[in-house]
């Protein structure tokens, strides 16, 4: 019998090694798997390459992982926001690398990796500094830039409802990059707010099919990044 349940967030992330590439779901605060990120901080893996749209806020979640100096490189589209302090400081001190990728290209590179497509052409960045050094090609008289797939060793993801086979649904705009990241990582680890038996999610409503999920851990009352920041919390 397939059962992908994991007893704790600590055990779920225990085999993430130093130097791993880790995708982290979420767009800003929405959909950020705070408990799994904090477990990764406790676990202590270093020299990580982290893929997320942003670089975290305040001193919790992704920002805390970066602040704990576990991240060698960030791959993201928008590394600063009003409450983003940790990454900008380290970046300006030359202590963390940054690969900037337009948001739609980031999504498609992740999707392509999950779909087994090694590269694709996009009109995004044509004529800009972000296209410099990249292969371009014309289709129907219009130039396009080639972009490679983007894979990861692990993805850590937050969902709303999971069954024991790893079929997932999300909540509103907390979905964002997560279904794509589930497809693109060798090992996908999901924290779910609600765990149900197989058959309890209508097959028509499954957003991420269980084939893309390896481990599920139940976190019934997940904290939200904005709530922690409003309370001026930090981690560890």
């Amino acid at each position, binding site marked *: 019998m397939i059962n992908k349940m994991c007893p704790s967030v600590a055990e779920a992330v225990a085999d993430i090694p130093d130097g791993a590439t880790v995708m982290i779901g979420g*767009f800003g605060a*929405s959909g950020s798997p705070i408990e799994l990120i904090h477990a990764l901080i406790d676990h202590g893996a270093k020299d990580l390459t982290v893929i997320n749209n942003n670089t975290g806020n305040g001193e919790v979640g992704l920002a805390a992982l970066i602040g704990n100096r576990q991240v060698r490189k960030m791959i993201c589209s928008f590394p*600063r926001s009003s409450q983003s302090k940790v990454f900008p400081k380290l970046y300006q001190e030359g202590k963390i690398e940054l690969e900037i990728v337009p948001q739609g290209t980031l999504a498609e590179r992740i999707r392509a990796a999950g779909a087994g497509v090694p590269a694709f052409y*996009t009109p995004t960045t044509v004529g800009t*500094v972000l296209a410099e050094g990249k292969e371009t090609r014309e289709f129907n008289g219009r130039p396009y830039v080639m972009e490679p797939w983007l894979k990861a060793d692990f993805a850590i993801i937050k969902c709303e409802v999971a069954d024991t086979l790893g079929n997932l649904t999300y909540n509103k705009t907390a979905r964002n*990059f*997560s279904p794509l990241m589930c497809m693109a990582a060798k090992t996908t680890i999901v924290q779910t707010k609600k765990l149900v038996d197989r058959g309890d999610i209508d097959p028509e409503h499954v957003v991420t099919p269980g084939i893309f999920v390896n481990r599920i851990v139940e976190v019934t009352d997940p904290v939200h990044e904005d709530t922690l920041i409003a309370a001026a919390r930090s981690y560890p």
Partner: protein
Amino acid sequence: MSTGWTREQMAARAAQDIPDGSYVNLGIGIPELVAKFVPEGREFIYHTENGMLGMGPPPDDDERDLDLMNAGKKYVTALPGASYFHHADSFSMIRGGHIDVCVLGTMQVSAHGDIANWSTGAPDAIPAVGGAMDLVQGVKNIFVITQHTTRNGEPKLIEQCSYPVTGVGVVSRIFTDLAVVDITPDGFQVVELAPGVTFDEVQQKTGTSISPPA
């Protein structure tokens, strides 16, 4: 000299040029105000690139849903008929040409329709592009709302952008505090002057030649 249109009036003027039934993406800042000035009898459906169609206005504080945000990471609501989707679908809507109008703010626009609104290129700046480069390449009509000049009086409508561009030849129409301006094969062309504003004033505050209203 006149002060021209206010921020709200610029947004209202831009809204007049969006057809009924359009799927619309609004950038951060003055473009967000467009949603307050939908002309009577028209319906626009708002797309937010983090994954929703049918975005509604901000909620009251006690009705906030922490999982319901827009691309500017502000809390929003979902209108009846809304849908949620992941980022690859969201940017397929953009890149695939399914969104009708995008309204953006900018630092500079060139006479050839190039837009520079993501980076000043300063050596100590942290680059942050978000979805801007995808939007300008993919959306059918790129509208820009901007003050005609910077706070220091420097023109923002110029011959060539000095900042790193977001996209080349992508802007179709510009709404400033002084005028509505089209990008044509011959460069900037005034379509309409704000009440009390003269063409000479617009020309004086534009960084290159601009054609008078036809």
